[in-house]
């Protein structure tokens, strides 16, 4: 059996003086939603176009289930994608938009009606797509991606323009697709959008993946085994703990962050020294913190660079 999911290895692409991709590598595995995050211009969209064979690279490979996109005979039954929800002919109805796509893959009109129902557009299917809101266009784009019932799904900024209900629907929908065993890659420039959906994250910056790990691992690494301590006797507590070899820092009026000691040892030390405390908890970094940390360098670089990455 061929390798599942998407494997991107060492993509390098230059547009004139701008290096759009600089060794982008990551893997999208089946069964989970992989978030593809990073600031605008980090190379997310370019990478997706390369995966779909739309843009050529100077170096590197992008494989779908172990095969280059060009060699796929029914591409849409291998990978469904949504790059741009506005990519529609405005005077063609939504159903007809899906119909030509279905015909190109040898699929029947019946399949079109199935995916329309799946994304909840049945009542609007015969209306001109030009009159659709951005949220409806996103749903139509998802329908197009599902048309070939592919094991790999790739969506570029699918939350754009969606209302809160739509975002909740989209999150659930993406999770259900992954639960069916599909490999799902979802890009976003806002970490908050993929926060509760993705189990795996690829963080892009300056044309390469600066992180490619599970969400739990990333948070653990960012938390760094720190413990948050709430106490009214801050100075006393810091003395006791520093003496025991911990690194301590006051982070608020009543809060202290401790690293270098596990939580149970801290509780024991404080009790022995009769330091009052009201709460001891593992400090938990948010994904947003992780993201900020990882992309800070990339954003600074971008701000200092006058040339914009095209598209």
């Amino acid at each position, binding site marked *: 059996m061929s390798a599942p999911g998407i494997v991107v290895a060492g993509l390098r692409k230059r547009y004139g003086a701008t290096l759009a991709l600089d060794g982008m590598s990551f893997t999208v595995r089946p069964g989970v939603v992989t978030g593809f995050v990073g600031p605008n211009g980090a190379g997310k969209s370019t990478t997706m176009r390369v995966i779909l064979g739309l843009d050529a690279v100077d170096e590197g490979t992008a494989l779908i289930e172990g095969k280059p996109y060009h060699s796929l005979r*029914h591409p849409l039954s291998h990978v469904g994608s949504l790059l741009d929800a506005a990519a*529609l002919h405005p005077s063609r109805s939504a159903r007809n938009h899906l119909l030509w796509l279905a015909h190109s893959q040898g699929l029947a009109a019946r399949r079109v009606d199935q995916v329309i129902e799946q994304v909840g557009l049945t009542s609007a299917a015969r209306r001109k797509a030009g009159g659709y809101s951005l949220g409806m266009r996103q749903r139509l784009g998802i329908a197009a991606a599902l048309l070939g019932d592919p094991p790999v799904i790739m969506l570029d900024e699918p939350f754009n323009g969606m209302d809160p209900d739509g975002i909740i629907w989209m999150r659930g929908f993406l999770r259900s697709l992954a639960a069916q065993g599909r490999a799902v890659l979802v890009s976003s420039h806002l970490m908050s959008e993929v926060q509760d959906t993705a189990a795996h994250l690829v963080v892009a910056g300056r044309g390469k993946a600066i992180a490619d790990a599970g969400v739990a691992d990333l948070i653990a690494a960012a938390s760094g085994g720190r413990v948050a301590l709430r106490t009214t006797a801050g100075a006393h507590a810091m003395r006791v703990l520093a003496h025991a070899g911990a690194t301590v820092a006051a982070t608020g009026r009543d809060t202290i962050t401790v690293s270098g000691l596990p939580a149970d040892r801290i509780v024991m030390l404080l009790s022995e020294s009769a330091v009052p405390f009201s709460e001891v908890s593992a400090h938990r970094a948010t994904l947003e913190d992780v993201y900020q940390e990882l992309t800070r360098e990339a954003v600074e670089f971008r701000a200092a660079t006058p040339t914009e990455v095209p598209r």
Partner: protein
Amino acid sequence: MTPTVTPYRSGRPVGRDGFFQLLHAEWTKFRTVPGWVTGVVVAALMVVLVALLAGVSSNQKGSPPVPIGPGGEPVTDSFYFVHQPLAGNGSITVSVPALRSSIPTGPADLRPGIVPWAKAGLIIKQSTRQGSPYAAIMVTGSHGVRMQDNYVHDTAGLPGSVSAASVRRLRLDRSGDAITGYASADGRHWTKVGTVHVRGLGPTAQGGLFVASPPSVHGMGTRGSVSTAVFEDLRTHGRWAGGIWTGDQVGRKSPSFAGYPQNTSGSFTGSDGSFTVTGAGDIAPAVRETLPTGGTLKDILTGTFAALIAVIVVGALYITTEYRKNLIHLTLAAAPRRSRVLVAKAVVLGVVTFVAGLAGAVVAAPLGTWLARANGVYVFPVASSTELRVALGTGALLATASILALAVGTIFRHSAGAVTTVIVAIVLPYLLIANPFMPASVSDWLTRVTPAAAFAVQQTLVPYHQVTSIYTPYNGYYPLAPWAGLAVLAGYATVSLAVAAALLRRRDA
């Protein structure tokens, strides 16, 4: 963390893969954009509408009938005829020592000149009725001795012009419906020029001497000429009526004869076998210049021009809209073999616009012709095979032009640029040749090398070597044969399509 998951496998059967699916997809794309379907329907309607307008707006009721030859074609049959009846078989012989022509250079200012197809000789003709069958042998202004019959047939005889030092002797024999012409330079050695079979001469035909002098071409116009010939040693054998010769102007008033130059007229003088005959006009097929009020199938199908603009716009938009809306990403993701996408688009567009052009022409041609004729307009007749060629050619013209627009649209990825380029390439040369003051050499060049050469596919007029005239595209005569003209446009379309395919493959989408 690599959870053990079973990768998703679709239970759906995999559809067929191939070019047919792409064609199906592109056809679905085309038919589901109302604007494109409307554009193509409008193209067909424009062809019909303009034909209706051309037919309805023309009014030539009461104009004299155009003489029609035995083959059904319009003819010029206006000449000076010195004749008597020939009741059955017989022969006639004559010497021609002189044929001189005059051309007006101003009002009442007649100067000697050369009229290449001035004709003087012997003729046996069913009657003096215009368009009646005949056979004749003659000397000409600069094409030597010729034998001609029934207006369109022409056989060369002795070369050289006639003069007192180079007298030409001519002979015509009738035997049933076979007429044989002979020529001699010395009166002893006779050369047979040809035998022709002329049906419908009847038991009693008219035979004798004739002089004709067709209009002389000067730049972009013609001037009526007049010619005088000297005949000697006129002899007849067989069932001739004998006695007096009668002089008549055949076809004095005719749409295909502009009349004699000012202060001249047809005449004959002489007796005892020597005559001097003056005449004007021609015995020949009519061409556009000699029948300026006549219409052609191409005139009726002028709406093709408007249809062309419509299909060029649709052809360009068929691809440029995909670029404008980024829809091309979806198209190429669905079909990574990009050249096949372009070919599928070209096939769908070509078939649709071909059908529109064909349908428009099939309705417009008979309808417009019928209306024009009902309003007294003479329409140059065409064989049904020619009418079929024009209808198919109109469809092919629209199809090829729209495919060219598709290819240019793929190269430019921009509607306005593509539409402008193709319209300039096809329509501008067409407008230039539609200008009557365009020099013939320029028109000729434009209709050989530019995409406008394709309009040749609608031409129905045939130039005749034995008729000096203005055979320009403006008059409906194209330098290239119908399908050769279309092939020029097809060449442009094919090259553009190849360039477009190469760029489509090479460029990032």
